[in-house]
């Protein structure tokens, strides 16, 4: 079959099984857009800004485990997409980004809408390609999908000069990829795995700490089985929530800067730590010199460079989470059958004492809407089964702390890069992937403004996302740091002119609601979710003095948490709605 380069792009996506491409046209991509016009197999979703395209593809990938696909034009199309590419890279999300490029003959001439796409994206992709011959195009696209979605996943950029999309060649989509320089390991080393199990079974104060690798690696069931077989405490990172059911008494909640008291204290005090698909990020560990001083660490990760990067590890295991955990489970069962039974009753007693602090508690009597209450009520209305995306700030932490995730892939947030603007476009990708599921975007009045234009995309494709704007009239997380660490000098963390979000949502053709009293929260959420086919933008006017607790200040250790608000919090200045 002889096809043009543009047709090869579209046909390759089809042969790769791609459902959606999130994109925005422009000169260098016009041949490809023409090829899209002539087919119906791959649906193109027209966003309103290329950042939105990348976050939407990212949300789709997080919710499904399949790579998200993006198509943008050269120059500004690419630079607009970079934030979303970097976001996916930091969280190891599989994504293939096709970028138009100026014709080969013009590359390097500072041509109209030329940027060095491969150069600009190099530090924030897993890999990138500049296609130099139309004959290579299908092979490169095949490789891009393979690289994006294997080993430690990540975004791959394929830069395609316009002349190559016009040339023709014989098309045959490759059935397999051979790369001598890329062979991700899947199964861990058996000896190391059995050493790890011996350490775990001999522990007095064990803990299992897991991250996004469990979610991306599809290993939630394996983790749950292993933890339950061992009856050991389990804690998840911000990226790992949903990897273990929140309701299970073995779950200690999220750890890290805004994690539970019990999880951080247990991390500090443990004697054996099993870390799986987590990378000892600074937001998790706090001050490394004070990190878990007396523990022996077992670290399972598909990326060898994650192991031993920040902390020294006694038992490194390179491999995918699911097969490694399966193997651990079968060894644990065999050892138990041989009469080796761990006894960690005293350790659980300690943990229950810590748990009794109820470190996520908040003032339930307040006359103002507490953001935590909105999230708890959202859980109630959706039975904890919604797909929840979030932006970045206090609302993100409250969502992570209070929603309570039953299953993996349902908590979707930018943990690594912390990208404001992520939530709404990510929710579009999730809703497209799961048209019959409830999708909520928890956001703040500052974050939502960063990709607000995507409300228009939601209208065009009838995406009934429920936007939950926890409107505290502040960049709350910035304000919180300024309150704690800058003597309350609130430098530029407050916007003096906020839009009327209800009118704004309505102008985009959606439903807008403002909720100002705690008594109206539940009803508003109920009504919103009852409107199954409408996007409802809920503007919750929340208590603007609320802070996220507990908190480990940067540079603190896990045993140095600020648990409760100090008296000083009450004197926070009040600001009214603009």
């Amino acid at each position, binding site marked *: 079959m002889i096809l043009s380069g543009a047709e090869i792009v579209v046909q390759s996506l089809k042969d790769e099984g791609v459902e959606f491409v999130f994109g925005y046209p422009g000169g260098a991509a016009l041949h490809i857009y023409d090829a899209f016009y002539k087919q119906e197999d791959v649906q193109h979703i027209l966003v309103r800004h290329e950042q939105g395209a990348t976050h939407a593809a990212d949300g789709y990938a997080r919710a499904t485990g399949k790579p998200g696909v993006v198509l943008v034009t050269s120059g500004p199309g690419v630079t607009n997409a970079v934030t979303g590419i970097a976001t996916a890279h930091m969280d190891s999300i599989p994504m293939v980004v096709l970028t138009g490029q100026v014709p080969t003959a013009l590359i390097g001439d500072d041509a109209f809408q030329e940027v060095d796409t*491969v*150069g600009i994206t*190099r*530090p924030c992709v*897993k*890999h*990138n390609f*500049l296609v*130099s011959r139309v004959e290579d195009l299908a092979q490169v696209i095949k490789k891009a999908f393979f*690289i994006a979605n294997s080993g430690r996943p990540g975004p791959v950029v394929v830069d395609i000069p316009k002349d190559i999309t016009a040339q023709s060649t014989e098309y045959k989509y490759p059935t397999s990829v051979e*790369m*001598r*320089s*890329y062979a991700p390991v899947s199964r861990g080393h058996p000896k190391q795995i059995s050493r790890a199990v011996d350490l775990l079974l001999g522990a007095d104060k064990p803990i299992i700490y897991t991250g996004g690798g469990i979610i991306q690696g599809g290993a939630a069931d394996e983790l749950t089985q292993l933890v339950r077989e061992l009856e050991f405490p389990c804690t998840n990172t911000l990226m790992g929530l949903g990897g273990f059911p929140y309701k299970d008494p073995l779950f200690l909640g999220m750890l890290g800067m805004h994690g539970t008291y019990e999880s951080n204290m247990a991390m500090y005090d443990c004697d054996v730590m099993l870390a799986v698909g987590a990378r000892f990020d600074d937001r998790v560990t706090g001050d490394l010199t004070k990190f878990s001083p007396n523990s022996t660490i077992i670290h399972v990760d598909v*990326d*060898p*460079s994650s192991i*031993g*990067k920040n902390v*020294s590890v006694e038992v490194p295991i390179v491999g995918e989470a699911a097969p490694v955990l399966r193997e651990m489970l079968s060894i644990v069962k065999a050892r138990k059958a041989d009469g080796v039974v761990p006894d960690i009753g005293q350790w659980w007693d300690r943990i229950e004492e810590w748990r009794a602090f109820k470190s996520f508690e908040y003032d339930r009597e307040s006359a103002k809407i507490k953001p935590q209450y909105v999230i708890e009520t959202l859980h109630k209305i959706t039975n904890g089964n919604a797909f929840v995306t979030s932006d970045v700030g206090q609302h993100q932490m409250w969502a992570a702390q209070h929603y309570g995730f039953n299953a993996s892939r349902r908590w979707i947030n930018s943990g690594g890069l912390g990208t404001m603007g992520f939530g709404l476009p990510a929710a579009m990708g999730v809703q497209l992937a799961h048209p019959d599921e409830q999708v909520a975007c928890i956001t703040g009045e500052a974050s939502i403004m960063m990709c607000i234009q995507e409300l228009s995309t939601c209208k065009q494709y009838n995406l009934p996302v429920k936007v939950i704007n926890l409107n505290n009239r502040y960049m709350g997380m910035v304000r919180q740091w300024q309150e704690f660490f800058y003597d309350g000098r609130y430098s530029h963390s407050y916007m003096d002119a906020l839009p009327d979000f209800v009118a704004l949502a309505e102008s985009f053709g959606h439903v807008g609601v403002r909720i100002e009293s705690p008594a109206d929260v539940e009803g508003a959420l109920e009504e919103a979710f009852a409107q199954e086919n409408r996007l409802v933008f809920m503007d919750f006017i929340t208590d603007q003095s609320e802070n996220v607790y507990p908190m480990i200040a940067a540079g603190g250790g896990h045993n140095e948490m600020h648990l409760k608000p100090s008296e000083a919090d009450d004197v926070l200045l009040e600001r009214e709605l603009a």
Partner: protein
Amino acid sequence: MRRIISLLVENEAGALSRIAGLFSARGYNIESLTVAPTEDESLSRMTIVTRGSDAIIEQITKQLNKLIDVVRLVDLTEGRHIERELMLIKVIAEREEREEVKRLVDIFRGRIIDVTNSTYTIELTGPVGKLDAFIETLQGVEVVEAVRSGVSGISRGDRALR
């Protein structure tokens, strides 16, 4: 500690910038870097001399291995190996200095490869230490310019990177 890392890399546009970019982005030090095609034209061979604690070197090798273009990698300093660097150095050599410089070149088994009335251009190969020592013994002789290739390395015995 000083380490010599030897790599086989896909001979692709951009491979060199990926490797150089990795060192700058992560703040690793590069003392020297050499690269040239190999007998297999789809591959380049690269030698990187770097310094760092054991933990940093471990990260460097892991991060390099993670690059899709890197086919194979070995830390030569972990085993017995040979390292060589080429230096071309032009010095002022006039009157009685001419004999003296020539003698030094002979002692170091270098070669004078270009001559003018007032200068010698010398070619010298060896481990870094030998080249440094040669420059040191030239004290008093004016160096016009010196060009060093950076280190190339290979393992001793029948071990090979392929």
